[in-house]
């Protein structure tokens, strides 16, 4: 029995975009405060959809999600009394940074969420400068997002979510398309956030980072059901499971502890 407060309770959740093609089927799961959870699965298994459902961007066809003690429905999120604290508590780093960075400059990008959550212009300016310094992107503040490299975009995407100081951070394939140095930086940064007590939920199929950024993992099968839920080392040690869900190939040389041995 987990003694930490329950943040998200997912009960028998089913979702589809087209009625005959299920994206998630009968998923049940609990997420506790301060947990670092990895959602593992092959391409198209439904990991990203699960993140969108948990962050109240789309809503279940069947089943229910409870977030911070309230049922997460479209109606509940119409109510500003629930919506504003919910959006402030939950940050989402999207896989496609180009879609996430929609403002004219990096400064505006970092200021967007604090302003939307009702912070004063002075407090917002302070937050923007602080988070830019933290991530080493001060020199990019006046640049338009389209003139940033892939690694810079990812840092800005992370900064623009952190500027509102969320309790829960959702990351969708965070290391996709990043060079090794930026990838390593990102993992270290997520580890620091984990140490600070943030709840971090990462959807990925990059097994090399999982044991560093998560203590628990759930595995989504290619048939869109939950295949496993347990401590990350236990999941990563289960070669048969990883093979079954198409996370490794028979000839893959993946082994647990690799990142620590080589890091």
């Amino acid at each position, binding site marked *: 029995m987990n003694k930490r407060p329950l943040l998200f309770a997912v009960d028998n959740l089913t979702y589809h975009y087209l009625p005959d093609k299920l994206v998630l089927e009968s998923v049940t799961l609990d997420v506790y405060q301060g947990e670092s959870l990895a959602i593992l699965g092959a391409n198209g298994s439904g990991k990203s959809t699960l993140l969108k459902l948990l962050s109240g961007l789309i809503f279940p066809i069947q089943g229910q999600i409870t977030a911070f003690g309230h049922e997460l429905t479209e109606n509940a999120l119409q109510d500003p009394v629930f*919506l504003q604290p919910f*959006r402030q508590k*939950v940050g989402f780093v*999207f896989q*496609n940074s180009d879609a996430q960075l929609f403002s*004219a400059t990096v400064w505006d990008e970092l200021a967007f*969420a604090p302003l939307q959550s009702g912070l004063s*212009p002075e407090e917002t300016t302070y937050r923007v400068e602080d988070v830019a310094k933290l991530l080493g992107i001060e020199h990019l503040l006046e640049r*338009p997002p389209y003139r940033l490299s892939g690694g810079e975009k990812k840092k800005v995407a992370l900064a623009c*979510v952190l500027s509102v100081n969320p309790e829960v951070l959702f990351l969708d394939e965070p290391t996709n398309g990043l060079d090794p140095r930026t990838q390593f930086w990102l993992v270290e940064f997520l580890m620091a956030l984990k140490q600070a007590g943030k709840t971090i939920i990462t959807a990925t199929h990059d097994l090399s980072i999982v044991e560093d950024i998560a203590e628990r993992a759930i595995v989504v099968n290619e048939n869109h059901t939950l295949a496993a839920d347990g401590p990350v080392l236990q999941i990563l040690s289960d070669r048969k499971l990883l093979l079954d869900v198409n996370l490794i190939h028979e000839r893959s040389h993946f082994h647990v502890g690799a990142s620590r041995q080589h890091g």
Partner: protein
Amino acid sequence: MDLPTWLRENSPASPATGIPSGRPFKIKRRSKHGFIHKTLQDIIQFLQDSVFSEGVAAQPGFLQSLDPRVKVAALFTLLLSLNLIRHLTLLWGFYLVLLVAASFSGLSVRFILKKVWLVVPLFTGIMAIPALFNWVRPGDALWVLWDIGQPLHLGPLHLPSTLAITWQGLKGDILLISRVGISVSLAVVLTLTTRWHDLLRALRSFFLPKVFVTALEMTYRYLFVLVTAVEEMFLARKARDAGFSTTKEQRRFIASSMAGLFGKSHQMSEEIYFSMLARGYTGEIRSVERFHLRLFDLFASGIVLFSALTLYAADKVLGE
């Protein structure tokens, strides 16, 4: 994995190319560039232009250092004044001052002249041609083109017996072209010395609704994403083009890439909306005003207002 035989060995040159393998061949120059080549060049030009403009706007300079709100207010004040005055000397005198200011701000005067005066006389000039003639604008004949002997009556229309270019018409046309050219030059100088997003934000300080400015900002921002997507699609097509695709095939490719891009932009618009929702967007955009009006900006505003009023007053004093 078993590869088919044809994939295991290098293929000889395809017979469709008409180039026998192993024999040297002449490079046949294509008579004209296809759509793909032209579109790629246009894309590269667009990206170069925008990078150039951003570069000029970001460099230190007199006009660049002014508060964008002051520049926008100055533009409207000067446009009003310039379009009310009728003396060419005053108009061109102002233009000279504008070019000097632009030059002091590191702008290429040649670039501005080329950008404005190669286009404006063409478009405005064509529209203004009818006003040259006495049939449209009666006046003192400067050059008689056609004499039909007696006045012409076409229904309710009564036209003089001669068709001539009038002195008043010519003066009016020169005044119109000068006004348009100088007004466009002012706008070019403003856009070259102000970054696009600062300009939009300055417009918001005056009268444009926030949501409209945000939509414009996002349009400009995603233009680059879509242009880059188009460039990638066209480069991918070019990489597989052996140079024998017909115009019809290229047209078909353009049509299908338009459809592909539409789908892509639709998908992206959904992702952007989710990303806005995830950061607390509820239909209202909140923003911080980051411009700081300095004494220098107030001084510049005073100078502009004084110049606009002086130009107008001088025009009145000089009379017809």
